[in-house]
């Protein structure tokens, strides 16, 4: 792991981006998006949260300048969380649809 020093300017830029994204979240929350408002609004809110998290991980947490193993470890947690989400929701999303089809 090299001792990479990130310039302060980078931190400030990332911080500015985070604040802009926060403002965007608030604006999106106050807007109405018409017919598919729920889908659009929710997707936007989580997309923004995701971008914020990625910025923090890459720059504040220095993953961008870290060796491969740190990338792998950082991704592993989210990958496994993905497994938990996917297979659990697989049950709930398929319940109503298949309960009828399979007869109960």
């Amino acid at each position, binding site marked *: 792991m090299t001792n990479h020093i990130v310039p302060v300017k980078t931190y400030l830029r990332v911080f500015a981006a985070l604040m802009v994204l926060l403002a965007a*979240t608030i604006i999106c929350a106050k807007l109405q998006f018409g017919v598919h408002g*729920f889908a659009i609004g929710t997707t936007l809110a989580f997309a923004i949260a995701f971008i914020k998290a990625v910025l923090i991980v890459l720059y504040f947490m220095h993953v961008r300048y870290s060796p491969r193993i740190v990338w792998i470890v950082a991704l592993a947690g989210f990958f496994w969380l993905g497994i938990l989400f996917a297979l659990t*929701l697989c049950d709930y999303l398929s319940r109503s649809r298949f309960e009828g089809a399979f007869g109960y």
Partner: protein
Amino acid sequence: MSHGNSPERLAKDDGGHAHQFDDASQQRNAAILGMWTFLCTEVLFFGAVFVAYTVYRYRYPHAFYLGATRLKFWYGAVNTAVLLCSSLTMALAVHAAAAGRRRSTVRFLIFTMILGVTFLCIKALEYHAEWEDGLVPHYHFNAAQFTAPPGPSQIVPAPDYAANVELFFCFYFIMTGLHALHMVVGIGIMAILVAMALRGRFSARYYTPVEVSGLYWHFVDIVWVFLFPLLYLLIQFD
């Protein structure tokens, strides 16, 4: 070198290392990898509650939406800003530590602590307001307020409808409470870091504790970044 009977002692400014490591860089790598591994467990720790929350929100969208509208949106928004600021000051503290600037490190660590305490204070105010509003499950939950939502018709809502709103608030308090607990731990760690920094334990060659604690603090910030839309930004679906 610090082999022998006092293996754990760290040499001060010469980039020394604990006995089990070959050199300071191996020790630093191990510490950073260790913290990332720990954060992995934290992802799953919070993640499990997120999954439970998602399942119930999928089941009871109306009730969860109604619950979310009762949260203090601006408290949450301001707290997000406060935490993002604290992440910046933490990053700057690590930066200063890496440059070996002790006073600057201490200053940024204290900034971070102040922002962390600010967050907790706002959170406490919010909890207080929620207690006043009768939104605390089981102990002070006013189910009646969820039995007659305004609408064009005379509806008698389901009794368990209020229970579903209560479920939302269970998750609200558990998730924000867990997060606040992590904040308290983080602030405690920073107090220790400040003490260590004041005693001159860090240098440009050895500042691993600051760096590793920074990772933890940023992670706690990320959790909030997801909690905010998850709890406060529920959108009406019509």
